[in-house]
């Protein structure tokens, strides 16, 4: 039996190849994901280990839970230096130090991070070129910032200190920030420790690195330091523990990447499973006589079953192995692409973990054999007498009660969940419910596939039948003659098309909705705000607003200030008093601004009163007429009366808004968080923009954004996301196209006598080719139509669950393009089967079974 199976496999290498390709691609993607993320992780770990190796013991401050990053004090450093066995201890300083670019503005949306460069034994900085700073006037910049901002060693640069005062420094070298995500994100400027403290205004340290004296083990030293620091709650690690800790937090990032990519791999494997299932089903149908012959000469049902499973196992194993190789290639390719796009990646050899091999082989094998189970069972039902029949029976399909029952069950529960998700408040829960509803509905479509494929083929085949005449009509008939087979073939494509439609609908809807919200939230032409820094004073001086008001091109300048206040809870007016504790953002506005209130009124908006956003009102349990207790730095505990509420999503105001005079009393002369500016009517955009920029020029950290820029940025982000997701889903679509090609070539093989008859009756080769292309076109269109319908419905549902008040949009061009592409891809998939059919000899085909 084994030999028969293997001989059969060898005799049909091409069939084997097409079948394997589906699995190979799916497994390749999964293996590639692991190879990529493993390699990244290995590289990071290697670097972390190299860096942490220089440290024997590291101390990190206790988690404070406060808003400001916790720090170790100078006293802690002194105490550590006093511990026996400490050869050297260095405090690491880190804080905002905004590097000013060549345009005179601070670079980036967040200030660059200033850090201390330690020299000597505990030097963990990787200088890429030049030298480390040794004097007060020297600085090193990270390589990426230097490249993007056009700085190089020897340049003189300006860095702002914590009070935004400019200081000139000479660049002595470039530094590679390695795996430090924080430094890589903001960009980094490195100083000597003393300068770093002066520039950042930080007196404490975010870490203290310690080198042990000769003969002292890190473990012993760690114990000694832990007891010396007793009570501060600081974490003391050995160098090794530090490395593990860093690797772990880094690993969390790569894990998210792995999971995200694996989701797409899973979709691809699901599609591959459908393709395999269909292929084996057709193979079994075609080999009915072969199976019957085997049964005639004494093979048991079990042996027939085993032979099919064995065949699938061989196919699964070979294609998984090929998939593994593909994965290695994909992983290496992705790394190369990432590096080429300038990502800061450690260069380590491509990592092929035993786990990757095991998972790839297991997934491929399980999916293939699993998909072949049902077809194998069908094979056991072949009666020995079938060997004697000359003509294979036409597959007749009748809709069974069981099918209807299952479809109804799936449809009802799926529909119910979907409705529940739409009705529910938008949020993650609603989204998950909608996902469940979508999956169940898809199952219903899967079960109903053979039933709906007939009317759909009439629909999708209408145009081809008109266009191609007899071949087109024959193609339509062929596409529906075996509804089960057509349904499985098209469902594979439907999966990809559904997800693509879903994503494009959600993207279009989000784009439309956000554009409108943006207009509401950003009812102005320009917004000037400070770089979002770590320090509290990430604001722009009030003088800037004055300068803007002085500009004749500009009008209606509104300053918005905010600060954090302690929260004393709210009482009255609402549904009971809220609890105290925590912090609230309290702010004010000054200038011509009229908030649209949802409840209450602006009358009497004087000291002692406040407007709150509806979300804050809900949190605190207050309504107009109630009071909120705030703990303020300058005025202590104050009670304010709630006058009115506003929509926090559309109003540009802080959650608790008080009159500007009162704000100064509570918090002192805080700078402006943001300034809203409009161009005067009739002033050209470039003129008004220049006016705003000129006014902001003396303030390096003040950033000017226009509403068009914000919208463009948002559009670009959306486009990018859409492109990546569609690209990743493309794999599933590719596999389903293999499925169409496979089904078609097997059907062509099965119908070779029929094709020969048609040719004998006068169908030209071209007409035969056109007939098969039209059949594939119809299959592709059916898959696309179902996919688009499902995608539109669930796109709408998903958008409903993502946020309230959406503006539903269907990207017609994209959807039409998707349908057209599916049809075209179907035609492409038919090229080879059609050519083979057209070339076949009539006489030989008439003679064969």
């Amino acid at each position, binding site marked *: 039996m084994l030999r028969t199976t293997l001989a059969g496999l060898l005799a049909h290498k091409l069939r084997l190849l097409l079948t394997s390709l589906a699995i190979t691609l799916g497994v390749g993607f999964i293996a590639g994901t692991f190879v990529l993320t493993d390699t990244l992780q290995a590289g990071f770990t290697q670097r972390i280990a190299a860096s942490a190796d220089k440290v024997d013991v590291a101390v990190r401050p206790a988690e404070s839970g406060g808003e400001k990053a916790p720090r170790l004090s100078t006293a802690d450093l002194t105490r550590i230096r006093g511990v026996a066995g400490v050869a050297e201890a260095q405090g690491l300083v880190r804080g905002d130090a905004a590097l000013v670019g060549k345009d005179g503005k601070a670079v980036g949306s967040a200030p660059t991070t200033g850090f201390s460069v330690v020299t000597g034994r505990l030097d963990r900085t990787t200088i890429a070129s030049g030298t480390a700073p040794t004097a007060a006037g020297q600085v090193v910049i990270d390589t990426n910032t230097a490249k993007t901002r056009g700085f190089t060693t020897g340049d003189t640069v300006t860095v702002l200190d914590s009070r935004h005062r400019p200081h000139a420094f000479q660049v002595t070298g470039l530094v590679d920030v390695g795996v430090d995500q924080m430094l890589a994100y903001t960009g980094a400027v490195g100083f000597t420790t003393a300068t770093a403290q002066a520039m950042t205004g930080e007196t404490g340290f975010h870490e203290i690195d310690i080198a042990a004296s000769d003969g002292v083990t890190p473990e012993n030293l760690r114990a000694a330091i832990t007891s010396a620091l007793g009570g501060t709650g600081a974490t003391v690690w050995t160098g090794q523990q530090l490395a593990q800790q860093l690797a772990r937090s880094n690993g969390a990032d790569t894990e998210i990447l792995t999971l995200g990519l694996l989701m797409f791999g899973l979709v691809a494997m699901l599609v591959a499973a459908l393709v395999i299932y269909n292929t084996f089903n057709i193979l079994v149908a075609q080999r009915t006589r072969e199976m019957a012959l085997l049964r005639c000469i004494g093979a048991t049902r079990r042996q027939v079953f085993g032979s099919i499973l064995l065949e699938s196992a061989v196919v699964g194993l070979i294609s998984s192995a090929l998939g593994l190789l593909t994965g290695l290639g994909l992983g290496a390719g992705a790394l190369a692409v990432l590096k080429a796009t300038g990502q800061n990646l450690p260069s380590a050899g491509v990592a092929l973990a035993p786990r990757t091999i095991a998972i790839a082989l297991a997934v491929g094998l399980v999916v293939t054999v699993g998909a072949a189970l049902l077809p194998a069972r069908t094979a056991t039902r072949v009666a020995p007498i079938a060997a004697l029949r000359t003509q294979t029976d036409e597959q007749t399909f009748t809709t069974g009660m069981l099918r209807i029952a299952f479809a109804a069950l799936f449809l009802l529960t799926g529909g119910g969940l979907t409705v529940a998700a739409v009705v529910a408040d938008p949020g993650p829960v609603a989204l998950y419910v909608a996902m469940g509803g979508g999956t169940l509905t898809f199952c219903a479509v899967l079960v109903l596939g053979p039933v709906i494929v007939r009317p759909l083929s009439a629909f999708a085949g209408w145009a081809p039948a008109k266009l191609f005449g007899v071949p087109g009509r024959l193609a339509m008939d062929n596409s529906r*003659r075996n509804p089960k087979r057509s349904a499985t073939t098209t469902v594979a494509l439907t999966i990809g098309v559904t997800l693509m439609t879903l994503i494009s609908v959600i993207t279009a809807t989000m784009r439309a909705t956000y554009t409108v919200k943006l207009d509401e939230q950003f009812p102005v032409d320009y917004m000037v705000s400070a770089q979002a820094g770590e320090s509290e004073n990430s604001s722009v001086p009030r003088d800037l607003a004055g300068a803007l008001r002085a500009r004749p091109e500009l009008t209606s300048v509104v300053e918005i200030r905010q600060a954090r206040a302690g929260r004393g809870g709210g009482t009255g007016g609402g549904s009971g008093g809220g609890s105290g504790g925590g912090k609230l953002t309290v702010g004010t506005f000054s200038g011509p601004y009229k908030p649209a209130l949802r409840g209450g009124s602006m009358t009497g908006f004087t000291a002692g009163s406040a407007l709150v956003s509806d979300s804050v009102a809900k949190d605190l349990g207050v309504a107009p007429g109630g009071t909120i207790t705030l703990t303020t730095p300058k005025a202590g505990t104050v009670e304010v009366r709630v006058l009115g509420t506003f929509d926090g999503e559309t109003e540009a105001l802080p959650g608790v808004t008080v009159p500007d005079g009162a704000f100064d009393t509570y918090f002192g002369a805080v700078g402006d968080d943001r300034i809203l500016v409009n161009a005067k009517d009739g002033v050209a955009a470039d003129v008004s923009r220049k006016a705003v920029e000129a006014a902001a020029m003396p303030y390096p950290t003040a950033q000017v954004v226009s509403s068009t820029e914000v919208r463009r940025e948002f559009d670009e982000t959306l486009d990018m996301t859409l492109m990546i997701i569609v690209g990743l889903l493309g794999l599933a679509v590719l596999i389903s196209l293999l499925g169409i090609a496979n089904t078609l070539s097997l059907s062509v093989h099965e119908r070779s006598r029929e094709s020969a008859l048609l040719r004998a009756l006068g169908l030209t080769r071209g007409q035969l080719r056109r007939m098969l292309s039209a059949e594939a076109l119809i299959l592709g269109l059916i898959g696309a139509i179902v996919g688009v319908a499902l995608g539109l419905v669930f796109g709408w549902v998903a958008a409903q669950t993502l946020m309230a008040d959406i503006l539903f949009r269907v990207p017609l061009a994209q959807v039409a393009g998707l349908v057209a592409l599916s049809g075209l891809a179907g035609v492409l998939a038919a090229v080879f089967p059609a050519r083979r059919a057209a070339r076949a000899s009539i006489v030989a085909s008439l003679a064969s079974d």
Partner: protein
Amino acid sequence: MTVTGAETGRRTMPAVAAKGVTKIYGHGDAAVHALRGVDVGFDTGAFTAIMGPSGSGKSTLMHCLAGLDTVTEGEVRIGDVDITRLGDKRLTLLRRDRVGFIFQAFNLLPTLTAEQNIRLPVDIAGRQVDQELFDTVIGTVGLADRLGHRPSELSGGQQQRVAVARALISKPQVIFADEPTGNLDSRSGAEVLSFLRTSVRDLHQTIVMVTHDPVAASYADRVVFLRDGALVTELAAPTPQTVLDTLLKLEA
């Protein structure tokens, strides 16, 4: 040896004629000479049967005559066209317009109804069906009430009658029938054969039929006998007995 319908005394141009047709499968030692220089003509409006023992090359001869297979050497004419010189496209069009087929089995497309199957060659050619002829043919083969059925809903005899109707409907210059009764019981077989006979008599249809059944051959005007790829003898106005005797002589 040239065998034509000369015995009638009238020398008309034959509907189909083969001249020195040789067919060799394979090369060198493995070469099989299926046909060894066959010269034969088939008169217009005549019903001719080709007979011979298994492996005598009778099916190959029919395939070559019908333009389904290529010849190694020689010339095949359908009407005034030498089909051995035609490319695939022209050959296909010629088959479509001038040749009808009835095979032993698997004659019909399972997805089409009986009527669609009958109209198929005319539809493929993009021509209009001669409705009067259609009605006559349907009446003759007695399928009027089965036209909407698919092949799977028809008996073997009915399926073959559909095939006969299909062959007749495009008024071909010649119909080739390959063992048309091979899969039928004797009663259905006799029906199909008498339809063929009738179409020759009433419609002046030319029919060339390959068969190994002496009874089927006796419906023909003339029987030609093949052995080892060569034409050996022929019989005019055959009866089952004379056909059987000739076959037995050939086998001996």
